[in-house]
């Protein structure tokens, strides 16, 4: 659709762009990224032939853009510049109708049925039809932007160039506009080239990205090929971290602020943990990075409060989410800052052990109810339901753990738990084999993320050694505690 070949150029005699080449296929959404002043807008202006390049060629459908007449080119390609709006009042319909300009031939041509259809269609696609008779100045920024996109769609060009279409819009409008553009690309084969400021939005919506630096192409390809931690940090000269989008297979970045909170004594010791009548509680006073399979706020996150709550064996699990939040509110714990587990074991039977490692303390807290113990290798042949009982394990590490260290620590802790059950001869009552856990076991790894950096958490690493031993010992004691009470 669009081929840019060795473009150099800029304003006046100062070259801004240096030898830029890339191509965009039909039905592709290309995002142009780059820091301020890298030449993104200049490139857009050269592609749209507002500026002439000093050398190089731009081809649309394999023909150089100079060979098209103004109107022919306008039917192939259109541009929406950034600042828009008029001094005079125009209605939405009037504004969208202007998009038909290149289709009106001669000085006297009349408004045709085709024009009318294209305008209505564009207004429907962008959702502005319902206020077609409103004046532009009475619309919000996002609605106005949609009207201008409708104008571009009414033009029926196959290639649309956009300059930061979501600038100054709130996230709802950003989403609406990008969803809309994405839909046109996917469903109607529109080709879109857009300058975007927001790397995350670009990675999320674009098929391909062009990363520019000082008027040159730094990277060009699929989002996962372009949005790389090193590349972005280098080009933007900013500290960032890369993660996966929670739902889409697209990379997302987060800024890492340079300013850090004044370093208090960010240590967690045995003294932070209290055993109350209804739950075991850890209040850390600063957020810990947590990976867990808790009832409330499971998964990866940052939390300050942790409870392991004792409930009656006949607790109604149906409304657990709402009930848990009510409980936290009643106890004065912020539901968005607390990880919660549940057990039928009394909180007084919890085992809390502290280990002092070379890098810092590791605290292990275990409550074990083994009434429902099962052998994981035999569950396919056993019958349910089973009795209540659950083993909840917390491991709090005073160190900085990498993502893989978190996962490895979970594995290590699980293995240690299985070994503890084995060593205590906990048996699955149905299969008569050694049990490996209960069906509802929960595990939580939390780290202060200060101090020594721990890349790995496997069994022979400094962290793994303590986790393995600690979970094993604490689980054994918890099992014994449980049996004593029986």
């Amino acid at each position, binding site marked *: 659709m669009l081929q840019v070949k060795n473009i150099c150029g800029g304003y006046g005699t100062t070259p801004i762009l240096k030898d830029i080449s890339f191509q965009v296929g039909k039905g592709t959404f290309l995002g142009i990224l780059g820091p301020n002043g890298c030449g993104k807008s200049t490139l857009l*202006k050269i592609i*749209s*032939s*507002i500026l002439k390049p000093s050398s190089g060629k731009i081809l649309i459908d394999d023909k150089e853009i100079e060979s098209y*007449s*103004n*109107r*022919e*080119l*306008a*039917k192939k*390609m*259109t*541009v*929406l*510049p950034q*600042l*828009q709006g*008029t*001094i*005079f*009042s*125009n*209605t939405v319909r*009037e*504004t969208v109708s*202007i*998009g038909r*300009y*290149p289709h*009106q031939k001669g*000085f006297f041509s009349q408004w045709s049925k085709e024009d009318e259809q294209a305008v209505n269609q564009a207004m429907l696609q962008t959702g502005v039809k319902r206020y077609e008779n409103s004046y532009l100045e009475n619309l919000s920024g996002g609605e106005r932007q949609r009207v201008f996109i409708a*104008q571009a769609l009414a*033009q029926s060009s196959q290639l649309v*160039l956009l300059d930061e279409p979501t600038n100054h819009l709130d996230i709802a409008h950003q989403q609406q506009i990008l969803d809309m553009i994405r839909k046109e690309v996917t469903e109607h084969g529109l080709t879109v080239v857009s300058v975007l400021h927001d790397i995350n939005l670009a990675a999320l919506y674009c098929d391909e990205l062009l990363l520019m630096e000082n008027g040159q192409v730094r990277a060009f390809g699929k989002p996962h090929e372009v949005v790389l931690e090193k590349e972005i940090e280098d080009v933007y000269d900013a500290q960032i971290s890369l993660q996966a989008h929670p739902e889409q297979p697209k990379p997302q970045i987060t800024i890492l602020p340079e300013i850090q909170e004044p370093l208090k004594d960010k240590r967690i010791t045995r003294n932070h943990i209290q055993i109350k009548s209804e739950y075991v509680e850890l209040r850390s006073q600063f957020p810990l990075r947590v990976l867990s399979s808790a009832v409330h706020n499971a998964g990866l996150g940052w939390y300050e409060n942790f409870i392991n709550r004792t409930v009656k064996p006949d607790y109604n699990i149906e409304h657990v989410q709402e009930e848990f939040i009510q409980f936290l509110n009643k106890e004065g714990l912020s539901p968005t800052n607390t990880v919660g587990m549940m057990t039928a074991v009394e909180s007084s039977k919890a085992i809390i052990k502290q280990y002092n490692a070379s890098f810092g303390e590791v605290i292990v807290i275990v409550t074990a109810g083994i009434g429902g113990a099962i052998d994981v290798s035999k569950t396919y042949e056993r019958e349910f339901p089973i009795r209540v009982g659950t083993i909840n394990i917390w491991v709090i590490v005073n160190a900085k753990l990498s993502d893989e260290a978190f996962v490895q620590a979970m594995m290590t802790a699980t293995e240690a738990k299985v070994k503890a059950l084995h060593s205590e001869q906990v048996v699955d009552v149905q299969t008569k084999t050694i049990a490996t856990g209960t069906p509802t076991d929960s595990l939580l790894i939390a780290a202060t993320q200060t101090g020594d950096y721990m890349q790995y958490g496997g069994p022979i690493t400094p962290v793994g050694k303590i986790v393995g031993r600690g979970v094993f010992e604490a689980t054994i004691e918890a099992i014994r505690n449980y049996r004593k009470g029986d």
Partner: protein
Amino acid sequence: MNRLIIAYISSMVALFVSIWLGVSIGSVDVPFSTFWDDTNESLYNILWTIRMPRVLLAGLVGASLAIAGAAFQGLLKNPLADPYTLGVSSGASVGAVATIFFSISIPFISNFTLPIIGMVGALLTMVIVLTFSRLIDRSMKMETLILTGVIFSSFLGSCISLMIALTGDQLREIMSWLLGSVSMRGWPFVKMIVPFVAIGSILLWLYRRELNAMMYGDERAMALGVNVKRSKYAILIGGSMLTGAAVAVSGTIGFVGLVVPHMTRMMWGTDHRHLLPLSFLNGASLLIICDLVSRTIIAPAEIPIGVITAFIGAPVFSYIFYKQRRK
């Protein structure tokens, strides 16, 4: 569509009513029947040799200023622009005032010396302003054009002031010309201005769609396939032609070119396909009525028409502005 039909019909009706009032009211009342009844020769003469050319001239001048104002406001994307913004009228004025000041009279066309020199002045100014702004900025941005216009207007304005300061006998003549008038011009003036009005208006009307597109900025207009540079030249030349012709025959009549496009826009919308012709019609009506008032309100004396346009135009404009904003 219905709204537009109403717009055209009401504007046409207003124009015909204005023309009729213009020709019938005065020191002698001319009944409508005089149009076809030539039994009363003096009435017939008053209608066809005095009133009619005056009314038509007022109408043509008003129409020219209004359509040029509408086009300039759209082109310059500036609601304060009027036909005089680019300095063309000052050029015409300098020509005209110089004619009076130096008592110039060109042989064979003595009566038309003033309007012709005025038009030449307008034309020269237009060429200079366009060339100069193109020299500064090849893409001829609107800001460049407006600033160049303002510079040349002030310069030419002081030339006029200089001539006024130095003149003795012709002061009254110069002043009355500057304040604008359409009296005692007769058919020759009407005939002289008609081709300019026709060509200028048609030129602007041909670029009505380009004006619509250029409201959204030059870049957007280019993306829509508009030949922006050619359109700018055409509109500037068309508008300047209309302005120069109007000023040359009637002096600098203010307010029409500024206010009529605004009133038309507020009532019937911004679409230049209709804004241009409707401004043309309404400008004609307004100036005919203003001329009528100027010669009847303290008859037999006449008030300069420029004073009346402001007297009538300002309150009407304020009223519409108020009503519009309160909605």
